């Protein structure tokens, strides 16, 4: 498989007052097209930092991150914005829908930002919320909001979908629904999905699992038989 993105010897240090926090220590990996990757690790292990670096909203202290011909570690803010706009879809733990836009408008916003978007109305149907198209986020349940957030992320037709604890704020039944959407997107649209979680059960749906601990990528496990979201429970 062709690597979509390569991270080589990346480190990330934060300065907190007089203390330097080493969030990532010499991490290297490759992410391939059409893969579903789960990043697993306890709090403070460096998984969110990694996701943010992959998404171009965080810069590395050293090392390189290469997406196609673009070196993220050398790109200026404009290039990083363009990278996020054209290639990256984000899904957040707290959905981050724009409160002033309806369900459909939140999805359509992504379409306006993308050069090759998918149909917002169709996506709304796919996430099962066609009847909520004119509802504002504050009138939707948590699960419904996350499904809208997924549709928004997918609408850009991104090459890489980055999900930061997408089920973290949901009950298990709604969480499964969300994972089904993500897995379905990966398989049917043949896109790459990177998903952060601290829930080991969710890792069973991944093609590969990255294990992070204390800022290091401890190991990468390939899952020979990824499960369907319906098949897992937590």
């Amino acid at each position, binding site marked *: 498989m062709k690597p979509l993105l390569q991270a080589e010897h990346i480190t990330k240090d934060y300065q907190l007052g007089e203390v330097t926090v080493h969030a990532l220590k010499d991490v290297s990996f490759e992410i391939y097209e059409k893969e579903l990757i789960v990043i697993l690790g306890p709090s403070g292990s460096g998984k969110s930092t990694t996701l*943010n670096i992959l998404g171009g909203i965080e810069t590395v202290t050293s090392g390189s991150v290469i997406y196609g011909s673009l070196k993220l570690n050398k790109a200026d803010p404009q290039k990083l914005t363009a990278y996020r*706009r054209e290639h990256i879809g984000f899904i957040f733990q707290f959905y*981050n829908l*724009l*409160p*002033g836009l309806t369900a459909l*408008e939140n999805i359509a916003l992504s379409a306006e930002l993308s050069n090759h978007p998918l149909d917002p109305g169709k996506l709304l149907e796919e996430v099962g919320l066609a009847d909520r198209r004119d509802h504002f986020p504050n009138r939707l349940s948590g699960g419904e909001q996350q499904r809208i957030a997924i549709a928004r992320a997918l609408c850009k037709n991104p090459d890489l979908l980055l999900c930061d604890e997408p089920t973290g704020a949901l009950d298990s039944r709604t969480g499964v629904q969300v994972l089904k959407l993500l897995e379905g997107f990966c398989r049917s649209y043949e896109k790459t999905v990177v998903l952060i979680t601290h829930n080991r059960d969710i890792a069973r749906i991944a093609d590969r699992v990255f294990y992070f601990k204390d800022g290091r990528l401890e190991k990468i496990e390939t899952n020979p038989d990824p499960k369907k979201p319906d098949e897992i429970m937590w």
Partner: protein
Amino acid sequence: MRNKGAIIGAILIIGIGIFVFVSMIDTLHNLDDQISAYYKDSGMADVFAEVEGIPSAELQRMTDIPGIRAAGGHMSRDLRILGEGQETIVTVHLMSYDPGDKINRITLTDLSGEDLDAGNTADDDIFLGNRMTGSYHYPAGTELSLLKDGHAMRFFCRGICSSPDYIYSIPHGGAMVPDGEVYDIAVISKKRMERLLGKNDCLNELGFLLEEGYDYDDVRHQLRERLTPYGLSSICERDDQASANMVAGEMVELVSTGTILPIIFMAISVFMLYVVLKKMIDRDRTLIGTMKAFGMTDRELLCAYLVEGGVIGIAGAMLGCAAAGIFGRVMFNMYVDFFTLPDPVYHDFIVSRLQALAISLGTAVLAVFLGVREILKITPATAMRQEEPKTGRNIRIPERLGRHLRMQTRIGLRSMGRNPFRGFLIILAVVFAFSMTSSMLSFMPQFEEVLHSQFEQIQVYDLQLTLDRFVTPGQAEDAAEHFSCPAEAICQTAVALRHDNLTDYTVLYGLPPNSELYHIRDNGGKIYEPPYNSLILNKRTAENLHISEGDWVELSSTGLTNGFVRIRVAAVISELLGRNCYLSLDSFPEVLHSDPSVNTILIKTGAEDKAGSLKSLMKTSRVSWIVDTDKIVGAYRSMINSMIYMVDMFALLSVVAGGILIYNISMISLKERYTEIGTLRVLGMTHRELGSMLLTEKMIYFVLGVLLGFPASYGINRLLEILIISDSFDLRLHIGRPTYLLTILICFVMTMCAWYAEQRLVRRIELTETLKARE
């Protein structure tokens, strides 16, 4: 320090409010205290009268009248004075000085301001008013001559004089603004005055002190009756005395502006402080929850925030008080320029500062209390959880319109709808800056309009020569022929008008028909011919006398009428300046039962010939004084410039306060939207697109603010017109298109600056942090 910008903004805003409050109140107190003290110390009379002449002993008999405690008077006369450096006719209102005077006591000082006692003055000493001394800077011992009936009498400048009834000294028919170059008071000894006038013990300017419990109405009938045999020409209470009236008018204006402007500024300060502190406390919600969980009581938490609010309040009060000390002195000096007080000293009043501190602290404490009480009600666990997003109302954009709007515009519109309070605050800031600034800036065009109307459409002459006596129009015309330029003879004299029990004093203009140099013109631009057999009356005088068109009024004037004559009021007109009455010269025999008499010649010299005319007039002895229109306009402009300094200061303060409000509220609002903005950036929205979204919002607020600013400006102007009431002018503030355009431009620049600051803040947003929070 959290929210550094917002706190500094709150301190500045409250500082501006306190600054306006303290500087106005202190100026008012300083003037009021010193004028009152001067009136008291110098025995300022309660009742004033002018007669042709009365001996001192006869005058003292007036104390027989029940209610009259004491009586006193001066000999006085308007005379020309000659000295070095004069380029025009200079007139003094010469008064006699008697060390035994108890009423309207004249103060004499040497040129350095040291008091002189009576024993220290010589017979040929002359003391000039403060303003004339300042205009000519004559050294002690300078020879000055007084001209009477063509004869010059020599005096030597000794020092400065001041009199409580001439704090504000202006000649009849001249500018409403004192001008020491051409007119002021002067004092010589009584003995010398008697020789100069050729009259012995003949007092003509009288003053009376009343017993406690008596007022003017209790004594005026008897006084009038007793003084009539001595040629009574006018009698009035202190409030109507020319100088006291002008001073009181100025004080009323100062009280009005000193009340309304601080109220507006303080109200906006209170509101701003509340908003800033409330938002600050809202952001501390989690911290409050944690502290409560640790066992901190509500009272302890409240105290902690009260201290913070208190520090802001104290800092604002200190800043405002410090600046007020400087500006108060400037304002006080400006008023002292117009009022002649013997020893004006500016004091910083501790009371006003304590009041300011109390207002400031009270405001801060109230704002903290209102801000913190909601949060204190919730449990520690709830407080520590992130706040649920507010469920505001979303704007439904019609589909047809929505299709044409960009997503940024829709986000902007919806954001405004979801949190209308944010928008309301910014709109309020624009309304405040717009209305206050446009109102303040409308003063200057109003003054220009008054000057244009008065000196280009009403008084169209260049020079006004006041003769030392009444002459026939024929004699005056013969004299005017000397100038070989258009000239007209008119009568301009002080008259008393009486209607029912009301009396008012004004100036009568007896004008020739079809006068070309003096037009009777109302505020609407209508020109009136001087009426035959009837009177045109100024609206302010008519209101004082409760007269309307068609009523009859009684008129009396020394040297012109023999007692009161009845005359019908043909019209009541509104004029911007002055409060005169008008009558045709031709009707003098029929109405006033006197021959047509004139005492004033108006000349249209043109700019080139004026200097020559003035030079030739220096040689004449029959002209008491000259009023040079350009000089009057100059004096008005000089007064206006001083006032405009103050008005501009308020305009600037409004702009600064408005700017701080717009900036601060924009920043606070944007910080509340960190997550929303961060999400948009993560989704790939460029800075340009975000800027365009924020600009859309800002422009909508700006347009709404300006639209609401129009009625607000109108309201403030009407309020100022009601509050600034004057007997001598009509305040008709209207805001012209250039002022509106300038104000719109100022508000636009402020809005754009706030937008620019927002964009800078957007660039600094930490995306990783914002994504952790819930909108």
